[in-house]
């Protein structure tokens, strides 16, 4: 002790500093680190509470119990196979391919995910496809266990066989409405792929038929309606976080053969294995043509061009959030600039839809803000990802499976917060990622394009789920438990008319107007809209 005292007495200020000087430094670094993280946390909490966005998934559809629903599939091509898989029926070839792929790459969980899928309690009882190879593939794959599947030569025979309660239509676009109308009139439930119709007049007939048969359940195949993020996006709009949205930008950017509808031509295809006349249906007479059969999306006679084929996805994605309906006018332009291979639908197209009376609600003086333009901009010659953006006076929202919201630097709503530098333009004020930590394996550029739009899969409880499965399940639940599918005739009618207005404007080179009272596209004397839309020009 005495020694110690002695020791301290010998100490001068310099010794103290040399010995203990590190301690205040240590304290200062600790304190500043702790207070900085603390205040960042508080700011984040404050922002979340101010915005008060409710992140919630769409409601779960009802139970799949009761008698099995007997289903028929019409068109077992690319989409037909996907739909059957979502229903729980994978082709033998697919199962084999996936098995091999999962052995090679244990990270490929597609087979495991398919096997883990809930049983929807259905029988795949009937198939109709005009191409023998595909019909036989289905017969071979699905005549197994307690499932018996039968082939019908025509959709009419299938619908009226008494052996199906419901049908899924995945035939080319020009067949959608005729098949759906026949089925509804026979009391058979319908799930029809997009676009809902191929011309203007059948859109009205289909709507009448659906309304006339209220107990027959009708759904349009816009599976992204099941995207986990879309209710959250709706909440963002309802809470006026973006303020008045004046512009919505959507787009397609693809740059590969598959993305440009250059599909493979099967070597078993010939006039003997394909019922050519049945494929043509109400389309103009044409000699047997493999290019037309496999790549029908390249011609207006069977396909619907960028406006009907791909814009419909984006239009409906936005319509399910904003519910803006049919535009008051549409202008479109474009051309065939990358794929001059004989096709007659454009491969570059811009569609502008005007909604002069629409508003998401604003933050400025009453009456100052009203009106919105929806833009769809597409090229099949470049795949630079432009993303989907909803642009409001107070903020912008990037929309995909993920949602990101930015405050606008000139916003009225956030003026104070921006001035106090509590929020920064360019730094998201809100981000929603339903996948949280999930890493997604995407196999091709076109697949990635679809995945970003929620067309391939979405998430429930952080887990990846096939959106088509959820969409079909919702339709089956309505058949079993009642209710109306999220994409039924009202939504389908709006989708079809808006798309046809885009196609017509492109073809006529002028603005196409909508009369909301008469519920008609305004025509000039002597104009036959369907003839113009379908003409192979």
């Amino acid at each position, binding site marked *: 002790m005495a*020694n110690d005292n*002695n*020791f301290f007495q*010998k*100490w001068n200020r310099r*010794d103290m500093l*040399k*010995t*203990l*000087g*590190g*301690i205040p*430094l*240590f304290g200062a*670094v*600790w304190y*500043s*680190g*702790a207070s*900085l*993280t*603390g205040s960042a*946390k508080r700011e984040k909490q404050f922002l979340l509470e101010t915005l008060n966005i409710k992140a919630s998934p769409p409601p779960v559809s009802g139970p799949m119990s009761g008698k099995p629903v007997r289903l028929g599939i019409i068109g077992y091509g690319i989409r037909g196979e996907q739909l059957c898989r979502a229903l729980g029926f994978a082709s033998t070839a697919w199962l084999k391919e996936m098995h091999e792929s999962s052995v090679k790459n244990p990270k490929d969980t597609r087979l495991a995910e398919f096997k883990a899928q809930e049983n929807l309690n259905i029988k795949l009882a009937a198939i109709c496809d005009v191409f023998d190879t595909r019909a036989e593939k289905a017969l071979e794959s699905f005549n197994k266990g307690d499932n018996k599947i039968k082939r019908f030569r025509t959709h009419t025979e299938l619908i009226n066989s008494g052996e199906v309660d419901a049908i899924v239509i995945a035939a080319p676009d020009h067949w959608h409405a005729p098949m759906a109308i026949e089925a509804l009139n026979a009391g058979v439930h319908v799930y029809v792929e997009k676009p809902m119709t191929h011309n203007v007049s059948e859109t009205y007939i289909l709507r009448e038929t659906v309304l006339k048969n209220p107990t027959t359940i009708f759904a349009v195949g816009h599976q992204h309606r099941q995207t986990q993020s879309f209710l959250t996006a709706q909440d963002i709009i309802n809470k006026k976080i973006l303020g008045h949205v004046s512009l919505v930008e959507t787009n397609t950017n693809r740059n590969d053969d598959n993305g440009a509808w250059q599909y493979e031509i099967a070597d078993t295809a010939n006039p003997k294995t394909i019922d050519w006349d049945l494929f043509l249906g109400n389309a103009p007479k044409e000699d047997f043509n493999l290019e037309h059969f496999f790549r029908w999306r390249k011609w207006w006679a069977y396909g619907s061009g960028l406006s009907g084929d791909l814009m419909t996805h984006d239009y409906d994605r936005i319509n399910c959030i904003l519910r803006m309906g049919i535009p008051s006018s549409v202008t479109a332009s474009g051309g065939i600039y990358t794929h001059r291979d004989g096709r007659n639908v454009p491969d570059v197209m811009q569609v502008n839809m005007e909604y002069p009376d629409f508003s998401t609600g604003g933050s400025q003086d009453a009456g100052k803000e009203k009106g919105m333009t929806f833009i769809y901009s597409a090229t099949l010659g470049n795949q630079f990802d432009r993303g989907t953006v909803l642009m409001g006076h107070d903020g912008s929202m990037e929309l995909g499976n993920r949602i990101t919201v930015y405050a606008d630097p000139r916003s009225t709503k956030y003026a104070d917060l921006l001035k106090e530098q509590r929020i920064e333009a360019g730094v998201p004020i809100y981000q929603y990622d339903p996948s949280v*930590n999930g890493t997604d394996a995407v196999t091709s550029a076109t697949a990635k394009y679809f995945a970003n739009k929620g067309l391939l899969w979405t998430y429930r409880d952080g887990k990846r789920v096939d959106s088509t499965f959820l969409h079909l399940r919702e339709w089956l639940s309505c058949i079993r438990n009642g209710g109306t599918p999220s994409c039924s005739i009202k939504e389908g009618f709006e989708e079809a008319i808006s798309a046809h207005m885009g196609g017509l404007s492109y073809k006529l080179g002028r603005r196409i107007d909508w009369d909301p009272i008469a519920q008609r596209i305004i025509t000039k004397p002597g104009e036959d809209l369907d003839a113009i839309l379908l003409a192979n020009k």
Partner: protein
Amino acid sequence: MNTQKLTTVQNYALVLLRVLIGWHFLYEGIIKAYNPSWTSKGYLLSASILKPFFTWIASDSLVSVVDTLNIVGLIAVGASLLIGMKVRWGCIAGILLLLLYYLAHPPFPGLPQGPAEGSYWVVNKNLIEMVALWVIYQFPLISVFGIENLFLKKKTTTI
């Protein structure tokens, strides 16, 4: 070791280097310690070489242990260098931590570089800090600046 004659300025320069590295380690540790959602998982999973090892330590069962060890390690190394206590041990621990960071994302040609504020080829700031710690290891200089002085002084005065 310390018997080599360094000039006063050389002493101060080396001590300053030690204090600044300690400061950096401590701050990195504190920021992570006070942010409950911080985890090294993303960093580890994106490792460009030795993937099996980094994926293994990033697994759900291990990653929280790894995170805690990392935070404790950073703070301990920082405290040791800053206060001047057990500096050599601090240097060794610091070098090991930096070696892990370096190996997870080495700036080797042909490997993805990830987000970085500068341009690096083989040598990056982790490597430089690692070597700087090696220098400190040679010259801990706790007698010039360090709490261990307390014990050194005591020894000398009691003699």
